[in-house]
């Protein structure tokens, strides 16, 4: 077991955004969290990595780092690609003195090679395309060899080919570092190409849990509405 979420509840003011959800993700497994916009998907990721505190429940992770790939990459625009990737190695208290500069350079090259972007160490984020920025943010996330990786809408806003490339990297990273991964998405291609299991959130609750194949079978009103992108069904978009 790498991540276990138990009875998690989060309220913003009076509104319950996450309402008593529980799930597990094992090492080397990819869980997709799907749902319409505003269903609380990204909030779950932020609760797991501690960016926002939860009101009650429990998040149990095995020892090691949690990494997150942000929706809009969140690269540091004042630093070049190499400095972005090596940020944790230079700035984290426990890693600062662990590596020499030449070792850090090697790690950066190795991680860049892993995401198919060799030789762009000196470029700045503004000089890269959206897809390249996303891949650099992958490299930054995995620089400490985390055992948990959280992806917040990794293919949002990308063209279909870049999306496929990113999806392939998510799967290859799973094999490479055997991390437990959670992918928040609402893109069907990302779900079917990357996920081992899927949970669907609506109104802060889990309304479906199963495999991508079970999702596509549309056996419940929720899965049917999600897959067909219908406005008719149990899930109502907020105006």
């Amino acid at each position: 077991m790498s991540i276990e979420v138990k009875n998690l509840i989060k309220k913003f003011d009076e509104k319950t955004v996450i309402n008593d959800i529980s799930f597990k993700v094992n090492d080397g497994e990819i869980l997709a969290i799907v749902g319409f916009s505003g269903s609380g998907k990204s909030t779950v990721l932020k609760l797991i990595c501690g960016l926002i505190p939860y009101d009650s429940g429990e998040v149990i992770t095995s020892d090691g780092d949690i990494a997150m790939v942000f929706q809009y990459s969140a690269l540091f625009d004042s630093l070049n690609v190499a400095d972005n990737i090596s940020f944790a190695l230079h700035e984290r208290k426990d890693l600062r003195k662990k590596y020499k500069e030449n070792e850090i350079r090697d790690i950066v090259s190795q991680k860049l090679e892993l995401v198919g972007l060799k030789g762009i160490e000196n470029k700045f984020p503004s000089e890269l395309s959206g897809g390249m920025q996303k891949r650099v943010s992958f490299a930054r996330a995995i620089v400490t060899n985390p055992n948990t990786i959280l992806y917040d809408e990794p293919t949002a806003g990308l063209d279909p080919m870049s999306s496929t490339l990113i999806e392939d990297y998510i799967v290859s990273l799973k094999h490479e570092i055997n991390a437990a991964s959670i992918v928040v998405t609402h893109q069907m291609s990302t779900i079917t190409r990357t996920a081992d299991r899927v949970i669907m959130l609506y109104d802060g609750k889990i309304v479906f849990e199963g495999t991508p194949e079970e999702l596509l079978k549309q056996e419940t009103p929720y899965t049917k509405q999600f897959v067909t992108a219908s406005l008719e069904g149990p899930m109502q978009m907020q105006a």
Partner: protein
Amino acid sequence: MITLRKYLKQSATYKVFSHFLIEFANFLDTLGKIAQMGMHVFKSICKGEIRKKELLVQCDRFGVSSLPITLSIVGMTSIIVASQVAHEMVKQGGGNFVGLLMTMLIVREVGAIMSGFAITSMIGSSLASELATMRVTEQVDAIDVLNVDSVSYLFVPRVLSGAIMMPFVVILASVVGVILGAVTADMFGGLPYRAYFDSAWLGLYMKDLGVCLLKAMTFGATIALISCTCGYFASGGAKGVGLATNKAVVWSFIAIVILDMVFAVLFFF
């Protein structure tokens, strides 16, 4: 039938009062955040968490980039004051004290306070908008997720550079102010440079210089701390960045005036 409670809720007085309470709560919230961040920065500095490379970058930004506007504002203020008082004082027979008046005014007040305003508008606003942009584009979250202390990483070099560079800026601005005062007194009041500089040092003590430097250090650190705090807690996209920048400038201006008053009471009362 409308109840008294409903009637009160609909009344303009209630709305004004509730708006006042919300603003007061926001004021206390901001004050608390500034104090909290200040404590965090202090602890980080005590632990030696100072990134020298970033500190140098911020020192350059605080001290060098801000110089043209700071020198202009302090210099022009000196010209305005000297042009108003030199002619009149020479006419009334007090020409020998123009230098004394100008030096005291610049070293004790104008140099630090005008530099503070200039630095706030130039550097404080840019610090706030920089951190606010990092917040709304999730760069601050990325720092936290990478297990790096974002407050220490972002605040310490900026606040320290403010405390280190502001005294240099104020000294330079004060020297320029005193010299421009002499030039103006000569042009508008016909006061010879010698007469101006002979009296310039009469009312100036080491205490004045010490207080001036301490004040400059405090202003620099405060401007950076307030600006970073306002930016760090920004939310809500482009509008949030604008609001954070606006808040940083307003709070810094108020803080400069209040701190100046505290210094005046503590050291010259």
